[in-house]
């Protein structure tokens, strides 16, 4: 499955022809181009972002006043569960995957990922898994046991709701595992000459850590999901204490995945911020090695803190103390990164563009979430905080005010590269400020509500509790966020009405993706770059005088893209051909899922479809 082949190399075997269309609907369905797949991931994730956002707005309408009557208790359970599942598995993970897919090959100087067809398979399977989970609304009820689906509630409650949870997440897990292996191999094995590990952009390092976290943590929740599925569907007793099972086993399996998952969600945004800050401070990242090793340390320690989600479960003082300490330890590498980012902007030549604002917003707000996270490490305090809105405040500060802000920064930053059009800067800044106000208005008062004792996941509360005022503020904040998202959509739509005139390097950036035209040609690089240093592109543009001031390298110097008017057409570069089979193989999985829930013959049909996809895959030629 070589992604690059020699001009004129003969086709190696295969019986079936491969699709050839390069434009239109089928070209997108059959694409194996990492850039198109990245866009597909991003579009799908953004769609689910809107869906999950609407769910959040309904939740907030319900809670805006005491004795709310907007959502019935059972619908409320479905909405908060689906809001969590959507935002974690169908928004932040795939939106990060969109950046990974689009940027990894461009940033390391490759033409595509290691396994282009597997990449397409992961993308389609993720989409089908999302649609599968959402189809539950029409098929008797959506998952309603919370995003962490605690047993035995998830295994004894009537209805198919939580079966959609376990089968849907199994599918999403397969998609993520396959993609993790693919991207990890791409980063390790497909780098351009001279792109050593310690010349890779920090974003690529964070991507690599995330792929390892995915590859090692997803199998653990897969075990839990299988056990939960079998308990419900086939009468096993893994989580049933009456028959010798143990519900705490689910919690261990879930959080052994669930805590690395937290870093899976935040490290991509940290990588994006680490790319944005040096560009708009016009300084190299402060302490590159420290940022990289902190990311790696977070990856390792992230596997050793899971039981801090379970302090109130009753594991005993020794276990609680040990996990309290490990939780405090993991704050250290995170703090190291914060100080490195501050060091990067310290005395920098700052340009407050929209991406920069989002990156700075990320740092400020992530610190708030990080500090409330450290308070959870104090076990007695956690006993009070657990399952209150204080927890909700904490993880929304890191995931929304943190990860989503970082991802929005990434969208503003790379939009011109991906679509060849700039987003409007003025509108972007307005959006940033509305979003920042909205986020703090929404998630700030939740700290107070939590400390006042408001439990999470309650459908309503009585006026006597005196929680009405802050809840109203939170609801107003949520709608403020919605306004900012609408502004972003307007900005995005407007950008497509303007001509494709973004230059190759609009931000005066440092990494390889800015050396190619915007948008990049299908083959990425006319000639695979040879890398000589960290921030190689920057060093091609600027030299330093003896006093340390930057002077531009004269235009026309070797490798300067500004002198390179006529980019090659890419003739003679063989790219992997499109294929029908990834989407066919992925299509079988939801059928298997419905089969597990409803009728076994659907599972058989699904397995046949998967096998058909696989064998078609094997019989088509490697390249055409």
């Amino acid at each position, binding site marked *: *499955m*070589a992604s*690059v*082949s*020699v001009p004129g190399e003969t086709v*190696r*075997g*295969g*019986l079936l022809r491969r699709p050839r269309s390069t434009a239109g609907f089928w070209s997108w369905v059959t694409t194996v181009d990492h850039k198109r797949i990245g866009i597909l991931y991003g579009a799908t994730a953004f769609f689910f972002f809107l869906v999950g956002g609407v769910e959040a707005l309904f939740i907030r309408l319900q809670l805006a006043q005491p004795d709310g009557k907007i959502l019935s208790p059972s619908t409320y359970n479905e909405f908060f569960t689906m809001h969590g599942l959507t935002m974690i598995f169908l928004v932040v993970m795939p939106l990060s995957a969109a950046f990974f897919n689009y940027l990894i090959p461009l940033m390391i100087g*490759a033409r595509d990922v*290691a*396994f282009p067809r597997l990449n397409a398979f992961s993308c389609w399977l993720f989409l089908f898994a999302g649609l599968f989970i959402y189809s539950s609304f029409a098929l008797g009820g959506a998952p309603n046991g919370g995003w962490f689906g605690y047993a035995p509630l998830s295994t004894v409650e009537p209805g198919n709701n939580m079966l959609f949870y376990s089968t849907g997440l199994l599918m999403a897990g397969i998609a993520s*595992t396959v993609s*993790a*292996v*693919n991207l*990890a*191999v791409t980063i*390790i*094995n*497909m*780098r*351009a*000459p*001279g*792109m*050593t590990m310690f010349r890779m952009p920090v974003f690529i390092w964070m991507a690599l850590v995330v792929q390892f976290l995915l*590859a*090692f*943590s997803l*199998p*653990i929740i*897969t*075990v*839990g999901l*299988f*056990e939960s599925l*079998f*308990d419900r569907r*086939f*009468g*096993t*007793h*893994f989580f049933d204490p009456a*028959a*010798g*099972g*143990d519900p705490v*086993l689910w919690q261990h*399996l879930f959080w*052994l995945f669930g805590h690395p998952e937290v870093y899976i969600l935040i490290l991509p945004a940290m990588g994006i911020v680490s790319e944005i800050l040096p560009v708009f401070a016009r300084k190299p990242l402060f302490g590159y090695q420290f940022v990289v090793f902190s990311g790696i340390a977070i990856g390792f320690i992230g596997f050793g803190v899971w039981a801090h989600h379970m302090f109130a479960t009753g594991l005993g003082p020794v276990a609680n103390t040990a996990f309290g300490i490990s939780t405090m330890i993991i704050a250290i590498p995170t703090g190291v990164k914060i100080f490195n980012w501050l060091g990067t902007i310290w005395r920098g030549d700052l340009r407050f563009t929209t991406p920069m604002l989002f990156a700075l917003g990320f740092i400020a707000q992530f610190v708030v979430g990080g500090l409330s996270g450290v308070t959870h490490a104090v076990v007695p305090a956690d006993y009070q905080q657990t399952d209150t809105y204080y927890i909700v405040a904490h993880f929304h500060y890191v995931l929304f005010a943190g990860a989503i802000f970082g991802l929005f920064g990434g969208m503003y930053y790379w939009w011109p590269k991906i679509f060849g059009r700039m987003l409007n800067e003025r509108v972007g800044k307005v959006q940033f400020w509305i979003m920042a106000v909205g986020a703090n208005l929404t998630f700030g008062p939740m700290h107070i509500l939590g400390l006042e004792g408001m439990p999470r996941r309650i459908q309503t509360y009585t006026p006597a509790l005196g929680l009405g005022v802050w809840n109203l503020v939170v609801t107003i904040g949520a709608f403020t966020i919605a306004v900012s998202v609408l502004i972003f959509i307007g900005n995005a739509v407007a950008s497509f009405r303007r001509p494709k005139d973004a230059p190759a390097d609009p931000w005066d950036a440092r990494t390889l993706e800015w050396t190619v035209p915007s948008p990049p040609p299908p083959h990425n690089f006319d000639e*695979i770059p040879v890398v000589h240093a960290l921030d190689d592109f920057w060093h091609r543009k600027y030299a330093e005088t003896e006093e340390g001031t930057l002077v531009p390298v004269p235009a026309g110097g070797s490798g300067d893209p500004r002198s390179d008017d006529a980019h090659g057409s890419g003739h003679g570069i063989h790219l992997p051909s499109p294929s029908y089979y990834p989407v066919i193989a992925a299509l079988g999985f939801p059928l298997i899922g419905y089969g597990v829930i409803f009728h076994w013959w659907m599972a058989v049909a699904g397995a046949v479809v998967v*096998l058909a996809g*696989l*064998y078609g*895959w*094997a*019989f088509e*030629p*490697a390249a055409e």
Partner: protein
Amino acid sequence: MSATDLQVDERAVRRTSSPVMGMVLFVAGEAMFFAAFFAGYFQFRSQAKVWPPASVGTPEISIPAVLTAILVTSSIVLQLGLRAVARGRVATFERLLLLTILLGVCFLALQAYDYSQLTFGIKGGIYPSLFYVMTGLHMAHVVGGVVLLSVVGAQTLTGQISQRHHEPVEAAAIYWHFVDIVWLGLFTVYYVAVPR
């Protein structure tokens, strides 16, 4: 290295095969999958007064012993096949690959027969839950392995596997050996390391 090879290789790391590296990573993740099951097994076993429970009794070891022999043999056969294709003896490889697939199918058939002989069902408590789900998911991995090997076979028949392009065989072999090793673990905890 010929001039063509130099042209093909535009990468920083030159000697590592992507399919092999991908499979090693995948199998490492799979190891976490089975490790989580085994951890659950030992947790439940350490809490139980009698293991296996009286309702199950001491499991019969003869058929599982044959299953072990089949799977270990198939691993050796596949490794010989890999060596053959790496040395350019594609015809020998094809025969050994076919033999591996047949041994895999024999394993599946015999294990299905073994299930039919058991006196306890999946609903009979925590031991049957663990036993059926762990061995069943391992069986699913053997099915996956047979499919994977047959896909490699399909690639061989269409001329996509040769001495120079035998990375898929190596990757498939890594997976097959892994499934073999997991079985040795299952065989140990369910049949060997039990009071007799």
